[in-house]
């Protein structure tokens, strides 16, 4: 039997060859999740819908760059959707530039325990590990990822030297890996 993940990868290989039915099937199976990805970054529905369109057009055009030996199809799709949504943020000049507090007391803005039951195993594990970081580091990583902020953007927003931000996030990433592996 073919697992969902495997068959999604096979489907993407068909899309690469220009198979429209396979493309429709990929959309049918993944658009709910990917729309959630776009909405997380672009809360205005119309903008999220536009990003979703761009994302699937990229799927159609760039299915040849998907390499099943290099990662899961779902991760590839989510990454692509996130990138299109961030592109749209940038194009609209909406990359967050609001000053940011980095005080240690800052609570993680995303309490995730209540909804964890709906998460996949990987998602729950990541949420758990982010929760162990403490000191506002989880919030910092989330802000960077969902706002499309690079080290340079974050340093500007927090009015801190680039090196300070960088070493703080790097420490958090290493702790994250330790927890996840």
């Amino acid at each position, binding site marked *: 039997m073919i697992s969902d993940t495997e068959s999604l990868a096979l489907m993407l290989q068909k899309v690469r060859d220009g198979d429209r039915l396979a493309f429709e099937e990929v959309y049918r199976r993944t658009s709910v999740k990917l729309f*959630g*990805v776009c909405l997380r970054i672009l809360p205005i529905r119309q903008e999220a*819908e536009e990003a979703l369109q761009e994302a699937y057009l990229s799927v159609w055009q760039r299915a040849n760059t998907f390499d099943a030996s290099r990662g899961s199809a779902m*991760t590839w799709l989510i990454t692509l959707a996130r990138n299109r949504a961030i592109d749209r943020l940038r194009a609209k000049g909406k990359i967050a530039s609001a000053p940011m507090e980095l005080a240690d007391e800052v609570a993680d803005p995303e309490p995730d325990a209540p909804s964890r039951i709906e998460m996949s195993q*990987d998602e*729950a594990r990541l949420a758990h590990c982010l929760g162990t970081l403490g000191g506002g580091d989880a919030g910092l990583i989330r802000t960077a990822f969902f706002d499309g902020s690079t080290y340079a953007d974050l340093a500007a927003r927090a009015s801190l030297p680039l090196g300070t931000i960088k070493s703080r996030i790097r420490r958090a990433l290493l702790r994250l890996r330790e927890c996840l592996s």
Partner: protein
Amino acid sequence: MTTPLPEDDELLAAELAFGLIDGAERDAARARLTRDEDFARAHARWQDYAAAMFHDPGEAPRPSVWTAIEARLPANDVARISPLRWWQAGAAVASAAALVLGVVAMQKPAQVIVRVPVAQAPAAPMVAVLTGKTGLVTVSYDPATGRMTSAASGLSLGEHAPELWVIPADGKPRSMGVMKVSAPGWGKVPSAAVSALSAGVTIAVSVEPIGGSPTGLPTGPVILTGKMAEAT
């Protein structure tokens, strides 16, 4: 098993996956993915972690999103067909019936070839040939008069009506009106659609209740699509 990456490399893979680096640093890290297996593996792992940040189960987008995506697929793009083949097709099937519409169309398996024979009108008219699983619709539009003609063949929708839409780059369909299935029709294009009509835009036919979509947006499936081309 592979040996663990040096800490700096591991972090670079994470930074690339989380979008923390930009410019030359990012480009260099990306280039490394293609030649450093271990680094690529670490990056893939971090991408999985990054993807798991989206733990929201998501929600269904409106059906119009798929309609717009499908309409923008490049396979609908008649401009991709080389000029030579347009000419060949034009010579091969210059039938009188098709000339009535100012369009000669010939359908090949999964491909449509369009040839527009004579068009010296002052404000270049436009034509589109719409194809799908079954049936064929031709649309011509004259900007000078704001009028269009449309004709369908091989289309049978029973208790439903085919509605024509123009879908410009913004992806929002504007109705061009309901068309007749039984005979070619002439009509004025609604002003909201006129401003969206230009060479290269997508034209689509959706299945709607008799009288047209009650919402102003396609409510039924899109069955035919094509691109407007300048008839010069």
